[in-house]
């Protein structure tokens, strides 16, 4: 049967992936879109008679809670993926890598210079002008503040948080900066870059000089996938070099494979040229509740209370 993919990815990415799967595996794919939480819940609800075959894609933390409806699959393509991105038993397959960036709208800087590092954003002049996805709500947001709390000294961290406006909608972050609602937003590179690529000249991307964070995203095989082997073939195709290049070109998804030179396809810096601050994902996941409680207590900027 034709595999059905439950995906959180944007339409251009999905269309590109469909084309590659058709090309490489000769399979026509059905697509169900939605947020990662919604789709994973759906897979859970359907576990007695699964309707989907492949889940594509979300962070390991998010998917972790749904392991009992997913199935490990060690795709041969995984050999091209660095070992540190892979998860135990290959429960999920690394699909791409997100880099946290500061998206800046230069029209809104009021003549001030663009920030170069996190501590620049801690200046009180930035109060209420930086937007961030809600850590309680989005894994992106959580990764960012968790990382910042480790990267910055306590005082700068507090000062920075005091400047932040929290949005419970992640997509409002790049949109808000692009519309000029906010001068800066902390968001994934892929989101920022789509505005640069679209030709909005006042948008610039800042990779903080003291270091930033990355998050891998994974695909997974649904347990009892009705398409059987075809589902696995679809995952192979998704992880293939052609597919990841296509995804990089149309959706600016930084590949999980090491055999693709990013700058050949888009105007993004190589991963090696970006300073990455390593964070311990496991620890981050474990101390989530405690950290969020602490976070909630910190004063922040934003609308009227």
């Amino acid at each position, binding site marked *: 049967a034709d595999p059905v993919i439950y995906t959180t990815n944007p339409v251009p990415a999905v269309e590109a992936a469909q084309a590659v799967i058709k090309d490489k595996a000769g399979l026509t794919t059905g697509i*169900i879109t939605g947020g990662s939480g919604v789709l994973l819940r759906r897979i859970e609800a359907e576990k007695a008679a699964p309707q989907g075959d492949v889940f594509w894609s979300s962070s390991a933390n998010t998917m972790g809670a749904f392991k009992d409806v997913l199935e490990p699959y060690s795709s041969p393509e995984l050999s091209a993926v660095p070992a540190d991105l892979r998860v135990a038993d290959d429960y999920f397959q690394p699909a791409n890598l997100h880099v946290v960036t500061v998206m800046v709208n230069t029209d809104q800087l009021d003549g001030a210079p663009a920030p170069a590092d996190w501590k620049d954003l801690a200046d009180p002049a930035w109060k209420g002008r930086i937007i961030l996805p809600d850590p309680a709500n989005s894994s992106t947001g959580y990764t960012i503040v968790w990382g910042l709390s480790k990267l910055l000294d306590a005082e700068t961290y507090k000062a920075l948080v005091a400047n932040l406006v929290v949005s419970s909608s992640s997509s409002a972050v790049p949109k808000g900066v692009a519309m000029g609602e906010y001068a800066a937003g902390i968001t994934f590179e892929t989101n920022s870059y789509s505005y640069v690529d679209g030709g909005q000249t006042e948008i610039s991307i800042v990779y903080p000089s003291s270091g930033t964070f990355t998050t891998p995203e994974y695909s997974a095989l649904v347990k009892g996938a009705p398409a059987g082997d075809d589902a696995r073939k679809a995952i192979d195709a998704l992880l293939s070099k052609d597919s990841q290049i296509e995804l990089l070109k149309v959706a600016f998804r930084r590949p999980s494979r090491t055999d693709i030179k990013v700058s050949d396809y888009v105007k993004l810096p190589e991963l090696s040229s970006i300073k990455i601050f390593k964070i311990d994902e496991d620890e981050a996941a474990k101390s989530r509740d405690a950290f969020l409680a602490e976070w909630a207590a910190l004063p922040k900027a934003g609308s009227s209370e």
Partner: protein
Amino acid sequence: MNHSAFRTPWPWLSALALALLGVFVLYPLLYIFTASFVGEGRSGWLQLLADRQSLSAIGNTLLLATVVTLFSTLIGVPLAYVSARYRFRGKLFITLLPLITLVIPEVVTAQTWLMILGNNGVITRFLKGYGIFIPSFYGWFGLITSMSFIYYTYVYIGTVAAIGKFDAQLEEAAQSLGTAPARSRIHVMLPVIRPAILASALLVFTMVIGNFAISTILGHNVRLLSVAIYQAAVAEGASNLTMQSTLASISVLIVMAVLFLNRRVIARGRYEIVQGRGARPQPLRGAQGVLVSGAAGIVVAISLLPLVTIAVGAFTVSRGPVMRWGEWTLDNMARVFITAPGPLVNSILYAGIATVISVAFSTLVSYLVVKKPNLMTPLIDYVSAIPLALSGTVLGVGLLASFNGGFLALTGTSTIIVLAYVIRRMPFGMRNGQAILHNIPNSIEEASISLGSPPFRTFLRVVLPMMLPAVASAAILTWTTTVSELSASLLVYSGGRETLPIQIFRLIDSGLMAYASAYGLVLVAVILVPVVVATTLFKVDLFASK
């Protein structure tokens, strides 16, 4: 109940309705609730009491729902009055266009408001130039403004038929006793149409409680229940099923409590009015006409600002998320019709079937509840209102779990999409239908029966025609909100069964506003065309008063 009651069709129909509601509403609900009991960790209620944030979310939600309901009523009722009682140029537009507000994706609405009143909004910048600082649109100001200008439509639609049917002689009686026309209306008309107003206010209240898109974009520091539920249920990161069920239960409880109050008030207000003496719409001329139609026009225009965004966006060149304003193209529209017409066909088909089923069912059931009460009908009334209290996501999960295999396997079919539509929107028809039925005197029905028409036939031949304006407005409301339904169908649809809203959601989520706008425009057309055809070609008089 005596024996003869069972010789009428009503008890049987009641039983049938209850059975259907049991299978399609209670059974899925059961899944949701059992999930809360088998949850891990401390009881959700204890967690809740310890959690100040959730508590403040409950408080904020109640406050927001109350205020928005109030504003929606204040906008919707006068607009309904003007539509029902006056004739003026462009009335058809002023009366039909508000429907669009229900169709436009709330994300677009929020964004449009931000373009005007946000930090970088047109008006904000303009005022800032004069040193005037308006409060931030994020938070209460934005939530209340944007929601009021969407949800007033429910009040408007629900009230217009009631005003059209109102016995105008009562107003005359009040005037003959010395009250000015405006006061007469407030004293005499308001109490009689109150059930209709309350019924639609209830809808607004529940819609606000369940609203997610705007809450999440504009809420910022204002914690709200729907966002909290979402966070606990389907947000990325750790999810807390127990908490989610607890919060969902709270939202169900709030809605049930409001419904209970609403029923009590309506029960006190069962006024039969003499039929067929609705006031003829008066022509509006001169300064007064300009004033009234102008005011109505402004309200409608404000609520239609998001439509402008869509209309312009649909024809604007774009690359990725970036709109090249000022550069025009037909590519976006072409994509809708040539590249991907599937969602268009699906939407019309599923929503059409769902509207017919939902309106037929809700009309019959509201008739049972109001005019043929028996032991089952209060239960029917309550159960049929439960969907109001369920967010689309929760309902979708429930449907998936309940009808995935087992005695009724529906997942992966179109039936489950239609089912989700019907269940979610049936309460609209119920509220409207009940409101109008309270005003139809029993003697009319008895007259028909005395002429030898059996009860069910009487319902079809006499009661139904009299309910027609209400049924029509319920159908329009159902059609509109069904065509634009997203959150439940998003969970239950399967490959090849995408609808327009799902397609739009995908595109917006991908940042492809221009394509999304093109689909949005088509969605607006899909919704309005049947309504306009019905009102003009078939002379369905929404504001009927013969």
